[in-house]
């Protein structure tokens, strides 16, 4: 399925290195994740590549079903059956890990970088927490209702603490939590998997994310927390391992607007304090504009357009990006009707995708060449890393070459969807 993706397989290193002097902390290359369902093979993520630099916030924006969350889960290796990461490399910069792996897995090491896709499963798991960590969309269901918030946080810290005491050994993380220990723990409430230090640190983390009376709140159950407080606690749990890259998967979607702003401020502050990198996944362009340094616009499992904030917001090339921007209400001028993008995200079933631009069916500027061949990702105006997967990058829209029957097709599709 990669045979016709030659255009995206250019230069794994070096591209866009001019925005920051340092090398990226994370280089995702040609990542593909597919789901093997009864309806057929679904290409949820198709050959996605991007870099994340030290201390930046990289935004991924797109509609529901465009593959944003699956990209995040793929990086953490949390994709579950029937899904599978089928191809791609995830290069993570860590000299220590690279030294450890150089002898046993030379194919997975390149300089200071380690391809987390090619290291053993156990090592990959040991990277969760201290390397990658994730904040989920719905804080209410992200905490185990039968354990107090503090205890759950302390457990996450304890897992990390044990991992550090014996780095990269998978067994050590839950050592001392065998069946016998489990039984005595259940029977004797005084004994516990977590140590006193982890409990203290849990309270400290709750403090850090701005939860008042953290000691008392730690002893409460998740149902006694509000959504915003729980999302703060969720952030605290994600920080437990002091991750290099924090993936925030729609961290504010389930919250009301004032709380959204608080959580975003908190994330920005923490990102500053801890000097970590953040991958911010959202469908809200407002969040991107407020938080991110660079942004990738995802559509149908691919990055349609990428670049700095100004590239994407002020000089969008891809009609999909333009459409997203036009569907934001403008509080200063509420008069004009919003311009929604017609139609829906395609189903992404492999057999129906074909060698063409996936957006052509919904695109107001579709031309004949859009369906003739899948457009490659090309450089375009703007900063050096402004790249777009669209024929319009290289030629102006020509109404005479408009895709024949596009309007009718679109109307038929729209009525079929209703």
């Amino acid at each position, binding site marked *: 399925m990669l045979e016709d993706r030659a255009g995206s397989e250019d230069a794994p290193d070096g591209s866009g290195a001019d925005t920051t002097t340092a090398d990226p902390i994370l280089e995702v290359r040609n990542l593909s994740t597919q789901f093997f369902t009864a309806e057929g093979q679904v290409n949820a993520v198709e050959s996605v590549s991007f870099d994340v630099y030290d201390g930046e916030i990289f935004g991924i924006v797109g509609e529901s079903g465009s593959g944003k969350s699956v990209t995040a889960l793929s990086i953490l290796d*949390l994709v579950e*059956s029937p899904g599978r990461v089928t191809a791609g490399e995830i290069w993570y910069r860590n000299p220590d890990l690279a030294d450890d792996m150089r002898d046993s897995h030379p194919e997975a090491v390149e300089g200071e970088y380690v391809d987390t896709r090619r290291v053993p499963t156990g090592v990959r798991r040991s990277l969760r*927490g201290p390397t990658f*960590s994730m904040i989920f969309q719905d804080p209410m269901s*992200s905490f*185990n209702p039968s354990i107090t918030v503090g205890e759950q946080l302390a457990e996450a810290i304890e897992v990390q603490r044990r991992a550090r005491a014996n780095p990269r050994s998978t067994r050590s993380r*839950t050592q001392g*939590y065998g069946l016998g220990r*489990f039984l005595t723990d259940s029977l004797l409430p005084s004994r516990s998997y977590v140590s006193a230090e982890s409990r203290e640190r849990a309270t400290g983390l709750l403090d850090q994310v701005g939860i008042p009376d953290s000691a008392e709140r730690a002893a409460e*159950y998740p149902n006694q927390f509000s959504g915003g407080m729980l999302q703060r606690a969720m952030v605290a749990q994600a920080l437990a391992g002091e991750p290099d890259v924090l993936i925030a998967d729609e961290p504010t979607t389930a919250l009301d607007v004032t709380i959204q702003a608080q959580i975003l401020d908190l994330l920005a502050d923490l990102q500053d304090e801890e000097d970590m990198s953040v991958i911010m996944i959202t469908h809200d362009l407002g969040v991107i504009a407020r938080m991110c340094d660079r942004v990738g616009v995802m559509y149908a499992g691919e990055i349609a357009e990428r670049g700095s904030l100004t590239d994407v917001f002020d000089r969008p090339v891809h009609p999909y990006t333009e459409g997203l921007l036009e569907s934001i209400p403008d509080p200063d001028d509420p008069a004009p009707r919003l311009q929604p993008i017609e139609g829906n995200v395609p189903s992404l079933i492999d057999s129906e995708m074909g060698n063409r631009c996936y957006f052509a069916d919904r695109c107001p500027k579709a031309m004949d060449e859009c369906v003739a061949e899948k457009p490659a990702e090309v450089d375009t105006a703007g900063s050096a890393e402004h790249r777009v997967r669209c024929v319009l990058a290289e030629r102006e829209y020509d109404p005479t070459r408009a895709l024949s029957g596009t309007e009718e097709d679109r109307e038929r599709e729209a009525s079929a969807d209703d």
Partner: protein
Amino acid sequence: MISPRTLGNLRREFRSSALAKLGVLIVVVVVGVAVLAPMFAPHDPTTQNLDRSQLPPVGFSTTTNSTSTEMVNGSLEVINETNEINATLTYPLGTDSLGRGMLSRVIYGARTSLLVGLLGTILAAVVGVSVGLVAGYYRGRVDDTLMRSADVMLAFPSLVLAIALVGLWGRAAWRVPDPLVVAGITPEMPASFVLPGTVIVVVGLVNWVWFARVARGEALSVREQSYVKAARSVGASNSFIIRRHILPNSATPILVLGTIQVAAIILLESALSFLGFSGTTLSWGFDIARGRDYLASSWWISTVPGIAIVLSVIGINLLGDWLRDALDPGIGGEGGSGGA
């Protein structure tokens, strides 16, 4: 481990439901009687006394007809004699065919039934919940392998399977010293009681499938919760997640199933004893089987242990209903979110 809210739900449901109270009362009485059997039993349940055999329970009387021939005035006459046997307070529930007090036997029988019921259920739960959680958590091939073998178990009629297993392994049983007798509180009672080991193992192995199915279903739903993903995203291992996240949040239906299974296993044990596949003769089912031969003349020998079985099974099921109503948020009123 048990959250205050869960306790509140239990208390509220208990107050509002008369059946819950009845169930708890029955279970408390049965358990109390079983634990303190030597103190409650008026006689040694194993001492035979043929002079006092087949005495009826208090409030009933029975007659025995004896026919004899006697020489009266030089001719043979058939004399029909009807003797009335009256109940005695010494044996409030009568005696069996060997003159053993039915009350004492029922009291001691409660021990066997409850021990087999509880230990068998615990064994079934440990095996079944482990299998079910692993199958539901890992899904895929692991799930298929484990649950198909569970289905094979389910395809056997449980009683036939139990009989086959008892036949295969023999009727091993251990004599356990009775703490009350050892301590000298009730020295006249038997110094030990029988723990029917094979039967416990067999009923456990026959019934684990139910636990496996319930636990698998719960694991399948709990594993999709965000907190499981969150735990994985900070590096927790699978076994840690199963124990710390999946098990506690699957506990409620497993607990409810457990109470119902105690009743089912008591019935199964009685059936096994009735058919003679028990390791002990001090069992309700065994007494029912013995009394079958005397149903026409001494109905109580079968009836008394039968009523004991019916009462305890009803009591345990009512208790299970109470737990289910109080813990399951889906059924009636507002329930806990499963924080057992």
